[in-house]
């Protein structure tokens, strides 16, 4: 589904990603962990197409298509979804208008008819239950005045509404209390199917108690330096990142 080869990216001439390699197959859940500043969020932004970053080398194939030359909206239409670490507040744009526009743009790309108003509302009702999001919130402007937890739940709500092929969740667990964390995890677990995949970017192992990954990768200094199963996350939780750093320095 996703194949990243030797990906290099920089911002203002500062290289953040220095050769990332990663393969994700349908039905898999991957966790990318790593200390602060290792390039986790940059990787998420680069994959989603943020223009702030410049890709200097490498290749990213998504379902066989090179997406690095694609506009962010086309990547989304191809089925890539980014759950933002800091979802943006957009006063004046209603959630309903935003989601319907988004859904219809994606449908149009696939050659489908726009969704009818009644079908859209039905879909909203159905998906709202999955993430336990308050109806009041969907009647407001996008993220405006939402609490931190509500914003994260709203990201997962958008994910299940748009039903992408690959979801990248960037620090979706940060700032969540245990109840919100469970809701978010349930949303992701219920959404999981053999034909879709998830990349969880997280600093802590906590989320991985609720969403069990097939693979855990450690990103350090812009490279994936270690890959293992879910037990790697527990090891990191117990021992911290220092031993990884040490291992890395020794290799270099």
């Amino acid at each position: 589904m996703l194949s990243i080869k030797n990906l290099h990216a920089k911002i203002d001439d500062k290289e953040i990603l220095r050769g990332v390699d990663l393969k994700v197959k349908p039905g898999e859940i991957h966790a990318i962990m790593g200390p602060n500043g290792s390039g986790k969020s940059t990787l998420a932004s680069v994959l989603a197409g943020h223009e702030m970053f410049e890709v200097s080398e490498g290749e990213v194939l998504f379902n066989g298509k090179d997406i690095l030359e694609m506009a962010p909206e086309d990547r989304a239409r191809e089925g890539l979804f980014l759950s933002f670490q800091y979802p943006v507040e957009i006063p004046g744009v209603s959630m309903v208008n935003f989601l319907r526009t988004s859904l219809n743009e994606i449908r149009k790309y696939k050659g489908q008819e726009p969704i009818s108003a009644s079908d859209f509302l039905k879909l909203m009702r159905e998906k709202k239950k999955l993430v336990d999001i308050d109806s009041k919130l969907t009647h407001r402007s996008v993220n405006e005045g939402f609490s931190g937890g509500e914003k994260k739940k709203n990201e997962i709500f958008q994910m299940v509404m748009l039903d992408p092929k690959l979801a990248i969740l960037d620090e979706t667990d940060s700032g969540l209390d245990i109840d919100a964390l469970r809701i978010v995890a349930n949303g992701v677990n219920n959404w999981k199917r053999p034909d879709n995949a998830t990349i969880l970017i997280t600093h802590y192992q906590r989320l991985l108690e609720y969403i069990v990954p097939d693979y855990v990768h450690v990103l350090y200094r812009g490279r994936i330096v270690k890959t293992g199963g879910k037990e790697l996350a527990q090891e990191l939780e117990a021992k911290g990142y220092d031993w990884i750093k040490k291992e890395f320095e020794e290799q270099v």
Partner: protein
Amino acid sequence: MDNAIKNIIGRDISLSTLFEENRQTIEDSSSKVLNNLREQALEAFLKLGIPSNKVENYKYTNLQPYFSGDFSFSLNAPDFTGRMEDIFSCDVETLDSFTIFIVNGWYYSNNGSALLPEGVRVGSLAALAKEDPSFVEKYYGKNAPWLSDGLVALNTMFARDGFYIHIPKGVVVEKPIQVVNILLSEEPLMTNQRNLIVLEENSEARVLVCDHTLSSDRFVVNNVTEGFVAPNARLDYYNLQNQHNATTQVAGLYVDQKENSYVKTNNLTLHTGVGRNNIVLKLLGKHAEGHAYGLYLLDKNQHVDNFSFIDHAVPECFSDELFKGVLDDHATAAFTGKIMVRPDAQKTNAYQTNNNLLLTRDAKINSRPQLEIYADDVKCSHGATVGQLDEEAMFYLRSRGINKDEATILLMYAFAYEVIEKIKMDPLREQIRSLVEKRFRGELDKCHSCVVCGQKGTGNTSCL
């Protein structure tokens, strides 16, 4: 246009000379109450002239070039007596309102007399000046600065007609009163329309003034509206401007407010050439509340200058201003928010905000708060911002599959929304909402000729 003064075309003649040459004709067919002020207005105009940008209040808009050149002058009511629906259809069509038409500054002779609440009078100022001169005399020239502003002086020299609205004591007019100003001429035209709005005690009215151009000629419009809002009365005033690029319009609204009165003005400039709005609210009685809002959406070489003056003359009044603009291409705009808190006006609350979104490097805004505070126990605030589209919001929308153009429209609309939200008439708000969206999508049809594209077209589909 049979009764137009045509000789201004092709002649190098000043407006004052033009007035003097035609003074007899103007005065003969006008009422004494309007004629009474013409001499002094002329003297004032001779001193003041059309303001250039050397006049402090007109610093960002030099009107002199726009008021010179060739145009005709309509000396009597136009002879258009056809059916208005044949030439004009309103975009706010679902609005259930009492509607009157003004053509080239003259009250349209075939305006119906729909059922208004008892005692409410809506009609032609010229007719009222004949039928009820003492009423007009009580208000005419009483608050517009016709001795100190050259444009108001000019209007007072030439003033012949316009609309008036009179709401008697205690009457609440539920339906909005809609005034449709139509400009229709086969040659360049200048108009000096004069309007009067009087709300007696405890009365309430909503007035929607829509400005349209129905032909592609050059128009120079110099409107003056005087408003008098008595104690406990409420006036909700909207001015929707949708005119083509060859229009120069100065719209002056001067309102006196007595105690506990409430006035809200909303200037919505969807399209124009050069626009200047003078919005003056004088808070003359305790607990008077004045709200001045505005939205200007400009592109190409359009220019709009909103000048507001909120005069806190007595203690314990409240005022709030919010003006927002979206400027594309080479468009320019200016905002001046003058707030005067007079020495005795303690416990004044006055708030002012002007936000601008510049979509190009060439677009330009001059924003100028002018607060003069002579009392010490007051709360005043002002803020002006100039910015570009939020890039993070743009990326967020695009990451959800929404393309850049659509995301830009959503974000511009979101920016404008705060002003649209202030419109309390539900159907009007919905219509404005859709007009603004159409405007951003470039789908807005100003009139029978397409004026959105800013290009000169050919034949019947001429564009200006």
